[in-house]
């Protein structure tokens, strides 16, 4: 990575400036959405008996959309920046995505906060069409408009990154097929391989989202009666993949960043190539585990769902975990805040993955589906997984671009508080799932009153988490701002 800001050319400066802007945006959205999350847990802890539940559901919707969006974009920004080492992605596409995302998020915030549109972030058909006087039809329209804008502009960015890869690599090289055949040349970095796989899959997810919106419109206009089961399949094809791929983009960043700290190369071996090609095959079917409790899905589809979900964990997770451990073991590893976050992120991914595999078991899903176990597992690999990996990237890059003094000891405490707050908060979700507390309940009925105490304990941990994040992220943000300003002044 070129160290000096002054020596960089205009294209590099633009790339850095954009990346810093993305970092600032993602971190700001993250903090806002963490506060929303705190509000949700406090609400479930009966802290606001006078507030109507509608505020819970609309905040829930906004919280999830922001988290999914912020970290998809954050990881895209990281991948975009790192890809520029090998190919030339267009900064214009990234800027377009920035504009589109701001517009989309503003529209969604309006529809949820002003319009009280609270149907959950994946707006399961046909709930948005049943406002019951709680929200007005304009809120539905604005929400869908916001989503459509996000889908279109994200797709532009995704396709542009693919285009940039395609300019240098053929499809078979980008997917490492020559390595599968035993060839060593040409070399393809894992970053390129994983990103290619992820972007192709994300394209499918965004197309599915567009289809869902289209079918909603068809149904709304009365031109067709849309099948609820088909809509649910399409919804999770999109929803599951976008979350799943955010994780993989984070892993792509991991593959690119970690070798520098270990002083060892991490090349695309045959196993790595096999693993990510298997992901390409399996990831489109893993979403089926969201429909286990829809007995209307044929039995063989459910079997396929469990099988795909199980074996999806093998290539990506098992290969990567072993790779990480082998890479850092006795490597003279350079521990910085960024490298710590990376390794902790991998651990979070592992733990969330274990919980996910357990929940992807049909027999278990019968008592875990839509209990707090579900948010437990995805918050684990999100908050304690990909978020840490992408934050590692922001931390490292902003440090590299500004070269401040590093206070290693403070970083250690930050990490401890971050993990304590995070895992304490998660533990209450897991415990809630195991004690049958349903997810997405504004308040708890008498049968599951344990959820109230759990929510209060969780809220306390979120306060720790938020406090630590606020201090830590403001430091990173200050560096990002400085780097951003430097780049702008230099260009």
């Amino acid at each position: 990575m070129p160290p000096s800001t002054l020596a960089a050319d205009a294209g590099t400066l633009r790339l850095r400036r954009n990346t810093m802007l993305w970092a600032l945006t993602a971190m700001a959205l993250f903090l806002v959405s963490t506060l929303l999350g705190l509000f949700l847990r406090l609400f479930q802890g009966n802290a606001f008996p006078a507030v109507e539940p509608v505020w819970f559901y609309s905040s829930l919707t906004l919280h999830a959309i922001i988290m999914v969006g912020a970290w998809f974009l954050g990881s895209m920004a990281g991948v975009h920046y790192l890809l520029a080492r090998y190919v030339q992605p267009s900064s214009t596409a990234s800027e377009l995505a920035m504009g589109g995302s701001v517009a989309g998020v503003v529209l969604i915030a309006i529809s949820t906060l002003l319009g009280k549109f609270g149907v959950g972030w994946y707006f399961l058909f046909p709930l948005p069409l049943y406002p019951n006087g709680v929200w007005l039809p304009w809120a539905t329209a604005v929400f869908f408009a916001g989503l459509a804008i996000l889908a279109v502009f994200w797709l532009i960015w995704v396709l542009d990154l693919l285009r940039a890869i395609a300019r240098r690599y053929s499809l078979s090289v980008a997917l490492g097929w020559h390595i599968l055949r035993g060839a060593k040349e040409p070399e393809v970095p894992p970053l390129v391989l994983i990103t290619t796989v992820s972007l192709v899959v994300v394209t499918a997810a965004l197309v599915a989202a567009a289809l869902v919106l289209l079918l909603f419109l068809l149904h709304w206009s009365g031109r067709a009666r849309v099948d609820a089961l088909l809509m649910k399949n399409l919804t999770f094809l999109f929803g599951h993949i976008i979350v799943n791929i955010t994780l993989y983009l984070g892993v792509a960043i991991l593959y690119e960043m970690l070798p520098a700290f270990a002083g060892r190369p991490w090349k695309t071996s045959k196993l790595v190539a096999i693993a990510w090609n298997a992901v390409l095959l399996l990831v489109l079917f893993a979403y089926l585990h969201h429909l286990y409790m829809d007995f209307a899905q044929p039995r063989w589809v459910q079997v396929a769902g469990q099988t795909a979900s199980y074996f999806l964990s093998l290539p990506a997770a098992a290969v990567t975990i072993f790779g990480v451990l082998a890479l850092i073991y006795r490597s003279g590893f350079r521990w910085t805040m960024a490298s710590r976050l990376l390794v902790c992120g991998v651990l979070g991914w592992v733990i969330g993955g274990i919980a996910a595999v357990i929940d992807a078991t049909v027999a278990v899903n019968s008592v875990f589906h839509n209990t707090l176990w579900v948010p437990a597992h995805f918050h684990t690999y999100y908050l304690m997984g990909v978020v840490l990996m992408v934050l590692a990237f922001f931390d490292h890059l902003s440090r590299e671009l500004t070269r401040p003094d590093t206070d290693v000891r403070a970083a250690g405490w930050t990490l401890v508080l971050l993990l304590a707050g995070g895992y304490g908060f998660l533990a209450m979700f897991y415990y809630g799932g195991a004690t049958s507390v349903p997810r997405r309940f504004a308040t708890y009925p008498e049968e599951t009153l344990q959820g109230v105490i759990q929510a209060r304990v969780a809220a306390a941990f979120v306060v720790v988490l938020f406090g630590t994040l606020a201090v830590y992220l403001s430091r990173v943000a200050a560096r990002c701002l400085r780097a951003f300003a430097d780049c702008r002044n230099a260009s």
Partner: protein
Amino acid sequence: MIPQYKALFAFLIITIAATATFHWVMRNTGNRKPLNPEAVSKLRGRFAITCTLLLVAALALTLPHFPYPRGSEIPDKVVFVAAKQFAFGLSEAPIANDAQWEAASQGPAVRIPANRLVEFRVTSLDVNHGFGVYSPGGTLLAQTQAMPGYVNRLRLRLRNPGRYPVLCMELCGMEHHSMRGVFEVIPADKD
């Protein structure tokens, strides 16, 4: 032990093992030494095979325990369930319209003999809901989605008499958390 706790313990054991492994490796990242590539590749092979075998074993052990009804047993009773914002109507007679749903959701609780196989025929009259059957003590026993346009058949044999609450397991609107239903399991000899 309820299945939830079994799953939780399995999760904790694997998580602790994974965390311990990470911790050990993280403690041993210093004193740089080149690794023997052959030993690494051998270990990696073993790790991959172990993971695969574990997954295959888990698949073979759990796939036979699908919650979907199958088999030749004839249920002793059918209970019709219609979900609608924001209540479950349970009835021994089919529920086809809003009036029947209202009567069913406000009428007395359906009674089910203990230890008999009961088939719940679950559907929705509006949006997606989740038909989650809880024990009188508040443990989730089983569930199926209530999806408009479909009737899902959930079969249960409940041993203990008592009032069984039904909670909604799919976000269905502003009163989702207060949507409920109830049925009563009575000692078998009374029916």
